């Protein structure tokens, strides 16, 4: 009996060991199968044959290019505008900052200056020129020209001034043309421009703090140039001589310009409100002499 039970126990143990061994062997085989699946080397040939490894490489390169482009786009967001764009922006920003002083936000009649000035420019041979005129309701800024973006000229014109002088559309257009020539000569930019602005324009400030000090400097220079500094005798002489040469071929325009200078000359001499005009635009009296017919002494 005892012997029988020992034989049974031995048989059961042997059977259990056998089952365990068989189970262990199956699990190993499964692992090996899995290993084979994840083992790239074993399927490398298949992938190469299907061109999949090439596709994976291309995809990887594509992702890298996209990432690079994305980074470049992100960096571009930190660009300073170009010099041309900065001039336009600075001019308009100055007009916004000085909106109350200049008083340009007011209702005024349509003086038809867009047509009249356009025709004057075209008559004098200036084509594809964009301009914007802003009428201001103050006697402090009589007339001025500011650089805009994309070759646009911005003109400021005082309504009290043109009303007091009772200027015609043609006279106003010639006054604007004089300002146009000053702008073309680059006097304003030369006087207002800063080295910092030139250095920073079009560059990138990614990873740095944006430097806006040059904008503040420019806005201050705008105010100084327009309200205090104005133009030098030399610059005025050059402008007047240019006006003379452009208008000489059209005597009717030349006469209007000469008459306009005479009007301004006598007006500013008698009107205290415009006493600073000669400091900014020296001087209508001299301009008349520069272009006027020489007086012959008998």
């Amino acid at each position, binding site marked *: 009996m005892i012997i029988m039970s020992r034989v049974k126990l031995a048989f059961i143990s042997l059977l259990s060991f056998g089952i365990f061994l068989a189970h262990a062997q199956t699990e190993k085989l499964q692992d090996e199968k899995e290993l084979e699946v994840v083992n790239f080397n074993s399927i490398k040939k298949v992938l190469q044959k299907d061109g999949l490894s090439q596709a994976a490489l291309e995809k990887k390169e594509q992702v890298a290019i996209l990432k690079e482009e994305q980074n470049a786009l992100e960096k571009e*967001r*930190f*660009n*300073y*505008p170009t010099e041309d*764009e900065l001039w336009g*922006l600075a001019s*308009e*920003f100055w*007009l*916004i*900052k000085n*909106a109350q002083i200049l008083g*340009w*936000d*007011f*209702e005024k009649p*349509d*003086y038809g*200056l*867009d*047509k009249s*000035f*356009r025709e004057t*420019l*075209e008559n004098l041979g*200036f*084509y*594809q*020129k*964009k*301009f*914007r*005129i*802003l*009428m201001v309701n103050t006697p402090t800024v009589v007339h001025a020209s500011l650089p805009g973006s994309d070759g646009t000229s911005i003109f400021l014109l005082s309504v009290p001034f043109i009303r007091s002088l009772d200027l015609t559309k043609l006279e106003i257009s010639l006054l604007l043309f004089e300002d146009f020539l000053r702008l073309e000569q680059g006097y304003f930019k030369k006087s207002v421009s800063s080295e910092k602005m030139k250095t920073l324009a079009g560059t990138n*400030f990614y990873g740095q703090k*944006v430097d*806006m000090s040059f*904008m503040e400097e420019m806005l201050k220079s705008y105010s100084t140039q327009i309200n205090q500094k104005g133009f030098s005798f030399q610059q005025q002489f050059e402008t007047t001589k240019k006006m003379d040469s452009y208008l000489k071929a059209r005597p009717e325009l030349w006469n209007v310009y000469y008459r306009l200078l005479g009007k301004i000359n006598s007006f500013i001499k008698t009107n205290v409100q415009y006493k600073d005009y000669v400091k900014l635009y020296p001087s209508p009296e001299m301009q008349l002499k520069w272009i006027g017919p020489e007086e012959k002494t008998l």
Partner: protein
Amino acid sequence: MILLYFFLSLFSYAETVATDEKVVGVFYMTPLFGHVHQSPIRTSASLTTIQCAHPLKVIESSKVSVSAEWAYVQVADYKGFILRSYLSERKPKCIQGTYPKFFDALNLDLSELYYWGRLYDHYVESETRVH
């Protein structure tokens, strides 16, 4: 019966009002800033200020007649007027979109935004022809 007639007429009125306005298309603002005006006059009150590349629905309505210079538009809940020359069918390239970080650094306050929009209403602009 009277009540039924009343309701029917009310529904037909509502339908007329709803179908009277027609969206002509979606256009984009081109200047840096601009205003949707209460009336088609450059100096009229501003309903809202919008910036460059902002989409606007141009509406046609038998109840609103405007000159060729102006467009009747809808922006969010506002319906007003804007100069047609400021609208573009294509999304324009704007300075605030091209240089967003620099433009943010200008720190424009509300009054400056308002005046910048007004500036474009006051400009008298033109271009000489091509030779």
